[in-house]
C-alpha cells in the first residue's frame, strides 16, 4: 500500500516516539508575529534561549496600522510591535519590521520570501498557517504555549491526525474563484468536518490553480475544522519557489527538487476519508450567517429557520439571522452592504488584487472600500502595474500592508451594525468589530459589492 504526502512529511520529522502515542516532531520553520511576543517574554523569563533563531522569522502584521502613509499607532497598539522588535533583536531572529518592504502578513511573506518550501514542517502561532500547505508542506497553527515550546526546543509533541482527501475535479466556470471553491468545500463538510484531520486537496481543478489560488484554498482549512491542509507540489510550485530570496539555489536546488518530486501521495495511498466535489457545480459563493459553513451560491435566498427540523440547528440559524439583520427568504442579491474589505491572508496577493481591480476598473465604489495588500512587495508590484491607480480612480482606498479589518486587532474595525463584503476568512460575530456583520466572498465579488452597494453576482455585473 502506498503512502500519503502527509505521512511522508510526518515520517521525515520524527525525532522520537514519546509516551501515550505522542510523537516529537522537528520544526523546520517557525514564523512569528506580534501574537508570538508573549511566548518570547515567558521564554526569557524562564532563563531559556531560542534554540534555533536561524530557523525563526518574524514580521509585524496584526497590529500595524494600514491607513495610507503608515501613521504611528497609539501607545498600546504601538507597544505590541515595539515589544516584538525588541525581543527578536535580543534573540537574534530576523524581523521584517516597519519600513521594511518585505514586511507583511505572515502567511503572505513566508511564501514570498521562499521561507516556505515543499516537504517542510512549518508552524506559526496563527490558525491560518495551513496556507503554507499549498506548497506541499506540513503547516499548522499552534497556541502560545506551543510557540514557547518550539522556541525552546525546535520541536512539538503531536498526535498523528487522520487524513482526509478533498478532490475537486473538472473546470471552474468563468467568475468562479478559489475562494468559492473553499467556501463550497466548507459548506459541504461543515465547520467541524475536518476536526482531527489533515486535509489534502487534489483533483484537476486544484492542479490547474496558481500558487495564490492554492494558498486561498489551504488558508481556510481551519474554517473546516482542520489544522492543516495541503496540495501536492508540482511544476507550478517549483516555478513559484525558484529564485526566491531564501529558496535553495545551485546544487542545493537540484537536490531539493529531487526530494520535492517524491512527496506527492502514492497513487494507491489510502486516506481515512474521501470527499469529492465537481468544479462545475461551484458558483460564486457568499456567506449569510456567522459561521464559514453558512455559505450559498449568490443566486440563492437567505435560508428559513422554520424549514429546519433539528431544533439546535434551527435555534442557531435564527440567532445567526438576528445577528446578521437578515430576513428569511430574501434574495442574497437584495442584501445591501455598507463597506467592502479586500485583503487578509486569504485574499491579499497580487492575483487577488488583479481580480478585484478588473471589476473596479471604470466603475465607482458607492460604499467605503478598502484594499489592503498582503505585503509591502505585493503593494509595490501592484503599483508597478497600475492597480493602485485603478482602485483610486474607482474611489477605493489603497492602504498599507497588514491584517487590518480581517481581525481588527489594530483597531481598524467596522462599526456595530455595519455590513461588510469581505475577502477575509471569518464571519464570526464581532470578528470585524463588535456588532459588525461580515459576508465572506472572493475579491471580484467584494469589488462588485463595492460598486453596486449590494451583494452582487459578478457574472451579471
Amino acid at each position: 500500500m502506498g503512502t500519503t504526502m502527509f505521512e511522508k512529511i510526518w515520517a521525515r520529522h520524527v525525532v522520537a516516539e514519546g509516551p501515550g502515542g505522542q510523537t516529537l516532531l522537528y520544526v523546520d520553520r517557525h514564523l512569528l508575529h506580534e501574537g508570538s511576543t508573549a511566548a518570547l517574554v515567558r521564554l526569557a523569563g524562564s532563563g531559556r534561549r531560542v534554540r534555533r533563531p536561524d530557523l525563526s522569522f518574524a514580521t509585524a502584521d496584526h497590529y500595524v496600522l494600514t491607513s495610507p502613509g503608515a501613521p504611528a499607532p497609539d501607545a498600546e497598539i504601538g507597544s505590541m510591535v515595539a515589544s516584538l522588535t525588541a525581543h527578536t533583536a535580543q534573540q537574534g531572529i530576523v524581523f521584517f519590521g516597519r519600513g521594511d518592504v518585505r514586511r507583511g502578513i505572515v502567511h503572505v511573506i513566508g511564501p514570498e520570501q521562499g521561507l516556505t518550501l515543499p516537504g517542510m514542517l512549518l508552524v506559526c502561532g496563527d490558525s491560518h498557517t495551513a496556507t503554507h500547505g499549498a506548497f506541499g508542506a506540513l503547516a499548522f497553527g499552534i497556541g502560545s504555549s506551543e510557540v514557547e515550546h518550539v522556541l525552546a526546543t525546535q520541536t512539538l509533541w503531536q498526535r498523528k491526525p487522520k487524513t482526509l482527501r478533498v478532490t475537486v475535479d473538472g473546470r471552474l466556470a468563468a467568475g468562479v474563484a478559489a475562494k468559492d471553491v473553499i467556501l463550497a468545500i466548507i459548506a459541504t463538510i461543515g465547520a467541524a468536518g475536518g476536526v482531527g484531520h489533515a486535509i489534502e486537496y487534489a483533483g484537476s481543478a486544484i492542479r490547474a490553480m496558481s500558487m495564490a489560488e492554492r494558498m486561498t484554498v489551504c488558508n481556510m482549512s481551519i474554517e473546516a475544522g482542520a489544522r492543516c491542509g495541503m496540495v501536492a507540489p508540482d511544476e507550478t510550485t517549483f516555478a513559484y519557489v525558484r529564485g526566491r530570496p531564501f529558496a535553495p539555489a545551485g546544487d542545493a536546488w537540484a537536490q531539493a527538487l529531487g526530494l520535492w518530486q517524491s512527496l506527492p501521495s502514492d497513487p494507491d495511498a489510502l486516506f481515512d476519508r474521501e470527499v469529492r466535489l465537481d468544479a462545475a457545480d461551484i458558483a460564486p459563493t457568499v456567506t449569510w450567517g456567522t459561521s464559514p459553513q453558512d455559505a450559498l451560491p449568490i443566486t440563492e435566498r437567505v435560508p428559513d429557520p422554520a424549514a429546519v427540523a433539528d431544533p439546535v440547528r434551527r435555534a442557531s440559524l435564527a440567532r445567526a439571522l438576528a445577528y446578521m439583520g437578515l430576513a428569511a427568504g430574501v434574495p442574497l442579491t437584495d442584501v445591501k452592504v455598507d463597506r467592502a474589505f479586500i485583503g487578509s491572508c486569504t485574499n491579499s496577493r497580487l492575483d487577488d488584487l488583479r481580480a478585484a481591480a478588473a471589476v473596479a476598473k471604470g466603475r465607482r465604489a458607492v460604499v467605503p472600500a478598502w484594499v489592503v495588500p498582503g505585503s509591502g512587495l505585493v503593494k509595490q508590484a501592484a503599483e508597478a502595474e497600475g492597480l493602485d491607480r485603478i482602485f483610486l480612480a474607482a474611489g477605493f482606498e489603497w492602504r498599507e500592508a497588514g491584517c487590518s479589518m480581517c481581525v481588527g486587532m489594530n483597531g481598524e474595525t467596522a462599526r456595530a451594525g455595519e455590513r461588510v463584503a469581505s475577502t477575509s476568512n471569518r464571519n464570526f460575530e464581532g470578528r470585524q468589530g463588535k456588532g459588525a456583520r461580515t459576508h465572506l466572498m472572493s475579491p471580484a465579488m467584494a469589488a462588485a459589492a463595492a460598486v453596486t452597494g449590494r451583494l452582487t453576482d459578478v457574472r451579471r455585473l
Partner: protein
Amino acid sequence: MEPFTRITAIAAPIDLPNVDTDRIVPARFLRKPQGSPGYDRFLFHDVRFEADGAEKPEFVLNHPSFRGARILVAADNFGCGSSREAAVWALAAYGVRVVIAPSLGDIFHQNCFKNGLLAVILPGDVVTGLRGALHARPGSTLSVDLDSQTVTAPEGAVHRFELDPFRKQMLLSGQDEIALTLGYEAQIAEFEARQA
C-alpha cells in the same frame, strides 16, 4: 501548571454549536497580558456584558444558578477558529477547569492541556443529555475524575471518557512540558546532525 486530579463543581450548559474563540475572547482584549486585572471579565465578553458593563441576563453564566461554574458542557466544535490561547486563559481566569463537548477545535483542544484545563470528549447524545439535565436542574454539579477518567452526571450516571495517556500524566503531575522535552536533547541534537 496547577495539577488536576478531580473536581465536583457547578456545570453550565453552552448549547450553541461552533462557538469560536473570537466569541470566547474578542480580539481587542488580546493586547492585555495574560493575568492582567479583570482578565476573567474578558471571557465571553460581548455576549456576557452590555456596552455599559452591565450583565446581559440571558447569558448562561449570568444566571444566578450557573454563576461561577467551573465546568462547561458545550456543543460540537467548541473553541473553533483562531489559535488565541487567551481563550483558555480567560476560561481559567474565570475558574473553569473542565470543558466537556462532543468535539473541540483542534488548536483550542491542545491549548487547554497546556494550561491545566481538562478537555473531555464524550459522544454527542451523552453531552446533549448532560446539558438537558443541567437545564432541568440549574445549579447541579458534575464530578470529573481524571484518574478513573469518568464524569458523574447529576443523577448519578457515570460516563467514562478516553484520554491520551501522555496528556493525562501531564495534567496529573502539572509537569512543565518544555522541561520534559529538554530531556530529549540527545535525540534532537542527533536529528539536527542528520539534517546538516
